[in-house]
């Protein structure tokens, strides 16, 4: 798709992306191109990529490709779009008030929200924190029900 950001379809591509992003936040968004919410998320990301380029890299991952299914399982992705944050090949968690701290589920309501989130992740990572708290007020965070394990 031309109007999407760099979409990764192979595990090896994802691996190299993770390993080659040094001292920058890596934003990996898992989703399906046909999903409207994913497209909205992509729109916001596309607008912010350049502004964030000095401290973050953004990439999309197509969930439907077979190669990437390992990651889908590893990151426990059940709802799309899901965004996972990495810093120096370490996974960054964010506490947004929901039960799942490991990823960001859903889209961002505004471009500024996305920028705030990435900035918070970057600041926390530079200080050596693996988990950060979300700077957004709860009304701006998309809600979802997390499926419990073994369900």
């Amino acid at each position, binding site marked *: 798709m031309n109007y999407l950001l760099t979409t990764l379809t192979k595990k090896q591509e994802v*691996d190299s992306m993770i390993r080659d992003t040094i*001292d920058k936040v890596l934003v990996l968004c898992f989703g399906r191109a046909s999903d409207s919410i994913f497209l909205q998320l992509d729109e916001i990301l596309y607008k912010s990529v350049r502004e964030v380029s000095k401290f973050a890299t953004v990439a999309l991952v197509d969930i439907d490709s077979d190669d990437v299914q*390992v990651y889908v399982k*590893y990151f*426990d992705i059940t709802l799309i779009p899901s965004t996972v944050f990495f*810093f120096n090949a*370490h996974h960054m968690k964010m506490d947004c008030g929901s039960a799942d*701290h*490991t990823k960001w589920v859903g889209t961002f309501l505004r471009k500024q929200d996305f920028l705030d989130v990435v900035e918070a992740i970057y600041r926390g990572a530079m200080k050596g924190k693996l988990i950060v708290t979300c700077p957004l007020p709860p009304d701006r965070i998309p809600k979802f029900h*997390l499926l419990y394990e073994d369900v």
Partner: protein
Amino acid sequence: MPIQNPNPNKKKKKHSNQDDDEDDTVQGKQRTQFEFCKACRLNHNQGRRHIYFPNHKKALSSFLSRFQSKLKNDVAFYLKKPMPLRPEHAALNRLWCVFCDFDILESDSSFACSGNAIAHLASAEHLKGVKSFLWKYGGGMDRMDSFRISESDFTKWEKKCKLLKSEAAGGGSHGSLIGPLNDIHNESKSEYVNSFDKNKLDCLTSDVKCSNSVVPLQDHTIERSQISHSKICTVGPQILHAGTGVGLGARTPNGLPGFFGNQHYTHSVPKEGPAYSCPNDGKQVYSYEGIAIGDRHSQGTSSEESRLQSLQNLTQISSSAQENGGGNVHSGAPPPWFSAAEKIQLDNKLNQGLGDLVSSLGEQMKTSKLNPKRVGAAWAERRKIELELEKRGELVRHDFGADWLPNFGRVWQSGSRKDSRKEFLGENKTWRKVDSQIEKPSQFQPYISKRMRTDNTAE
């Protein structure tokens, strides 16, 4: 809560305290055992909590900084420049080691000033003491090295002391003769003596230094530079040359002009013997010493060959030097080593300076740019090096296995992230096994009804 008598002993330590343990009634979290904190100088029963109190932290920092300034001012100075210790001053030079709780006296120190203190600060017991102190009072274990002397520094200092000793021993007898001469002479002599102990590098630097400061006394300097040049090459046989050269020198006074070709000297093959020229009184003494020292070291080496060699070398030098038309002491030209030495010195300084600059800049840049405590810092550094090597083409890019997974903390995770990865891999394996098992019965067989089957079996 029963309050026990605070222990008046200053040196009470937690682990060595046996009596109070029996009386101790641990109620809740607070221990009733009193300890003395050396930094705050107060008895407290807060146990390990005490070290985190802000008052204690303040007291500790001032305490350590006081001791550290003492170390810096006194000990560090003498570490770099050991000076002979006079017995009358010995009584003043004491150091109380706060970590080991004992007073280091200078009573029996034949070494230079504060020898006992330096020896103690470099010792293993002191290191233990420092460690335990820092652990007990929460000083920060990374500061350990600022309170002790490393082995390398200590060995350097010991060497210096030995040199001083030997210098003192050797220089004592000739002090009266050499006194009226310049300090330069003394300095050069000490360097001559020192050359037997130090390695080549030291010789070089000392040579550069002494030759640089030597301009007015040109005759002396020739000798000295020659001697030191000979030192650079080899120590053993050259000293022999020095020893035997006296006689030679007396015979070949014409050798003098030859030695202005010091440029040749530096480039020429190491076995050149120095020739000793004019029988000046001071020089005689000087070269006399040369013999003495040469004798000391000449045991076991053959003399004839080296003598012949030195003779041969002498003639070679003189011929080549005479060919060289430019500049003589007699013509008044500046000595060739002066400009050369200046260049060498400058270069050395520059290189050192540059090297220091570069390294310090690099360090500064590193530390100012990125926090070393950031997430994945170690990994990032390694990866940067890897990438750089790949760029240069030195390191062949080795692809990580298809099974590489990043560091991820799972959603319902209890335990570290490594555990979660292992868990996942374990689950993955079971999944794969299941898949393969499903695949095995791939042969599809047509449905045979029971009646048909029974008919078959019956038949």
